[in-house]
């Protein structure tokens, strides 16, 4: 229990500095995105940059409060925290306010709070708590089921709030499970399913004609090729016992997936969601509808060129051409005003942060801290992956914020809490005895 008086002792300053850099970049970008000659004062609370300054101040206070806590607190109270957040998620479904189609906000006066943001770190804590208990083995079915339930409950509740984007974030926990022993084949399987899904989507709109007489649609062709590949595989592995069963099973599942692509696409997904996927894959072009945001976003980012237009000189971003300029599409402002250099710096900063968190996680003596560290890295990474990916046309348009940068109190605070709990846990790593 050295240096117990000093709350800043042993904290990882590299992580804190990257955090502060990102928050500052975020504020500058919000200022640029909503910049308006009529309002000069950066403290103008009627403007988003003024408000964000307030949120940042409160976030720093939150960070310090977290550092004051004993790390032990989060370990001990992981389940109660998780439980309360679940209760909040249920409550918001009942009494929440609806903003932009998602019923995920508590409206208190002029102030809106989004509990789903806080569910992220709570789920991370609960998962860490559960997986760090003794005699846990990821290979057990029971472990997999319970871990899935811990992740699944908030995910489903958030889906019920009609916030698909935030629900998808819970998929990122697969990295945590993987690190803790989940078979890597599951990752590969996930990749294979996604690949098959996209491939049949791309192929099903084309017809192929053979010998001038047989016409097959693309997905039928895909099925035939898969069957032929499976037949070859069975032939080659005929000496191996039961290999044919595995291959046949895989084939049947694959064919079933291709069959159901239509159904999933037309019935399960909302029309705007399937449209966004179509636009992303280039199947459909819709520069004024679903493709509008991405097109405008690309123009803004692309027009930044190598060195950017300079601070406040961005024009694409000034006139509300890219909607959600200061929230989901904040990266456009950075890309436009700071160019490739700025984008490079930001991407590098994020990747640096993620790798640093993994590095820190791996040096933990406590399994709880390590797992939580992975949860932090995975959640942040997933937001980065989707958010930047969507602005540069590599991911479908899913409205989730860019950590520490996007405008918004709830998301900034939740990411701050998420990260600083880990920083606190890390700072106490020496105290922990395994």
């Amino acid at each position, binding site marked *: 229990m050295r240096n117990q008086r000093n709350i800043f002792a042993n904290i990882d300053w590299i992580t804190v500095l990257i955090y502060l850099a990102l928050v500052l970049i975020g504020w500058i970008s919000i200022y640029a995105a909503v910049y308006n000659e009529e309002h000069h004062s950066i403290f103008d609370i009627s403007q988003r940059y003024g408000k964000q300054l307030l949120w940042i101040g409160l976030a720093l206070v939150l960070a310090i409060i977290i550092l004051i806590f004993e790390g032990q607190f989060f370990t001990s109270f992981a389940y109660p925290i998780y439980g309360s957040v679940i209760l909040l998620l249920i409550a918001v479904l009942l009494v929440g306010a609806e903003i932009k189609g998602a019923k995920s906000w508590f409206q208190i006066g002029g102030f809106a709070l989004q509990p789903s943001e806080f569910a992220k770190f709570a789920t991370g804590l609960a998962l860490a708590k559960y997986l760090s208990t003794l005699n846990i083995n990821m290979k057990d079915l029971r472990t997999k089921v319970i871990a899935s339930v811990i992740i699944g409950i908030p995910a489903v509740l958030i889906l019920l709030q009609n916030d698909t984007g935030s629900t998808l974030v819970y998929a990122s926990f697969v990295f945590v499970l993987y690190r803790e022993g989940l078979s890597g084949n599951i990752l590969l399987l996930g990749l294979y399913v996604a690949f098959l899904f996209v491939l049949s989507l791309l192929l099903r709109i084309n017809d192929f004609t053979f010998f001038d007489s047989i016409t097959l649609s693309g997905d039928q062709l895909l099925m035939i090729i898969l069957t032929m590949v499976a037949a070859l595989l069975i032939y080659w592995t005929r000496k191996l016992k039961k290999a044919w069963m595995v291959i046949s099973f895989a084939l049947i599942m694959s064919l079933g997936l291709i069959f159901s692509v239509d159904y999933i696409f037309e019935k399960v997904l909302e029309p705007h969601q399937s449209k966004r996927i179509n636009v992303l894959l280039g199947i459909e072009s819709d520069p004024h509808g679903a493709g509008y945001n991405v097109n405008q976003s690309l123009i803004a980012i*692309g027009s930044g060129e190598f060195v950017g237009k300079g601070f406040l000189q961005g*024009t*694409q971003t000034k006139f509300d051409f890219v909607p959600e300029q200061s929230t989901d599409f904040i990266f456009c402002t950075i890309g436009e005003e700071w160019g490739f250099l700025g*984008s490079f710096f930001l*991407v590098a900063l994020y990747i640096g942060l993620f790798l640093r968190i993994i590095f820190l996680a*791996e040096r933990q003596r406590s399994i709880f801290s390590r797992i939580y560290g992975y949860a932090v890295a995975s959640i942040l990474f997933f937001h980065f992956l989707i958010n930047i990916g969507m602005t540069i046309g590599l991911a479908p348009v899913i409205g989730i914020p860019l950590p520490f940068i996007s405008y918004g109190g709830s998301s900034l605070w939740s990411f701050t809490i998420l990260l600083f709990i880990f920083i606190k846990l890390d700072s106490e790593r020496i105290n922990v005895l395994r």
Partner: protein
Amino acid sequence: MNNLNERKFIVGLIFLIVGFVYLIRLFNVQVINRKYKADSDHNVLRVITEYPARGLIYDRKGKLLVYNEAAYDLMVVPRQVAEMDTLGFCDLLGIPYEDFIQKLTTARNYSRYKPSVFEKEISAESYAQIQEKLFAYSGFYVQRRTLRKYPRKSAAHVLGYIGEVDAATVEKNKYYKSGDYIGKSGLELAYEELLRGKRGVKRILVDVHNREKGSYEDGNLDTLAVTGQTIITTLDAELQEYGELLMKNKKGSIVAIEPETGEILALVSSPNYDPNLLVGRDVKKNYPVLSKDSLNPLFNRALMAQYPPGSTFKTLQALIGMQDGVITEHSGFPCIKSYVGCHNHPAAQNVEQSIKMSCNPYYYSVFKRILMQDKSKSIFKDSEIGLAKWNKQVKKFGLGQRLATDLPAIKSGFIPDVNFYNKWYGEGRWAFSTIYSLSIGQGEIGVIPLQMANLGAILANRGYYYTPHLIKEIKNTDTIPSIYRIKNDVGIEQKYFPPVITGMNKVIEEAGGTARRAKIDSIAVCGKTGTAQNPHGEDHSIFMAFAPMDSPKIAIAVYIENAGFGGTWAAPLASLMMEKYLTGKIKDQAKETRILEANLMDVKPKK
């Protein structure tokens, strides 16, 4: 756990790969690909809708009936409004200060960056004044648009009017956006799709200060506004105006048709209104006034009012009788006033004289023969068979059915059939004796003035008609709707027409004819008077005619409500119209003056 320890490298690798892929993409978008640079280049896009000018409408002789006049909307971009002399600005526009504040607030609430309409439809004159001083007020500019203008102030019912599209239409039809104008009635409605043209879209690049910098992607995405098509109507503007003049202070309508084409030369409904009243923002003010007027000027009597045809119907009865073989042109019937009332005249010896003298008992007898052709022993059944056949024949004349003319608001008229009387009296409970008033065009028959004029055209053509229409030509195309090119045969052999037509000529030319006032020197006019019994007041005066007798150029129907006997007012009025059309001038000034000065509006209701 050893192998699990290595998994940190795999997770880290995934992070690195994503970062790397994103950087490659960013490098491509920001540095290599030139498309986005060109799109932006310190500029942003502004989309401007270009409204096409609506198509013009001309009359058959090339006289302009409808054109577009420039009007100006004062627009405001609230963000650009600077400190200014607000009171001076209010003075300039002639609006109170409160209005100014309220309008600016509305615009601000809509958008600070996007332009909104500050003041609508400023006239060209006011625009000239405002334009001079507008430079002093930043954030305000003027956008040009067009208003319909009707230089001749006539033919309001034919031309119709345009107005802002309603929400239901915007919902249904993708083309329209809220605030667009659309034809609401008349030709403006009927030929909306031709007249409206096609909206264009222009994308221009503007800089941070909203200055125009050129077109977006070299204008490749722009679409040009396509001007609405010019339409030439069949109307003869001079004849139309003359008709409106003659109908001053009279209720009723005139329809004139060119028999050999079915082209409508004039379509007058009186009282009428100046079409310029229903233009632009005046609509809100004027429409309620017009629609509440007790004389109902918005009501197009020529197409919407149904009257019994009266004695004009006898021409048709004679033709059917001859076609059915129940009479010949030499058949004579005594004038027995106990059947049905008549005026004093010598007995009609043949069809010709029966038309000339308009003998009621004669047609009582003719219609009796038409209905009761001994097809059945029961007089009820016999009348039923006769009526069914008669009804079918009458409908071939375009009566009792909607004529497919261009104007959509049109009534079908009514020709009673077996069903109708079965419902009315009960099956087997009516016979010729119940419904004999049909014989002289009274009773349950309803005919609109257009159908009456068309009957004139059929007689003029000796047995066929083209559906009366108002479209003569669509500029730069050589088609009009094909339905107006179809010859409709009425199923009466041509040889039966001469006696009726000679009779119609004698109505005017010979002593004892019922419409001597319709005589025009040098032109052989054929006509038939009618008086439609009106349970609500004085009878309606009707005249149906065509001229010249041997090579007809015009067929006409005139209805004057509550004006009594057809020969008194409707016949001379019709003759003036025909003379004007055929010769271009009026010889008999006294006749013209009599009609012009007549005020038949306040005829006392019959006691």
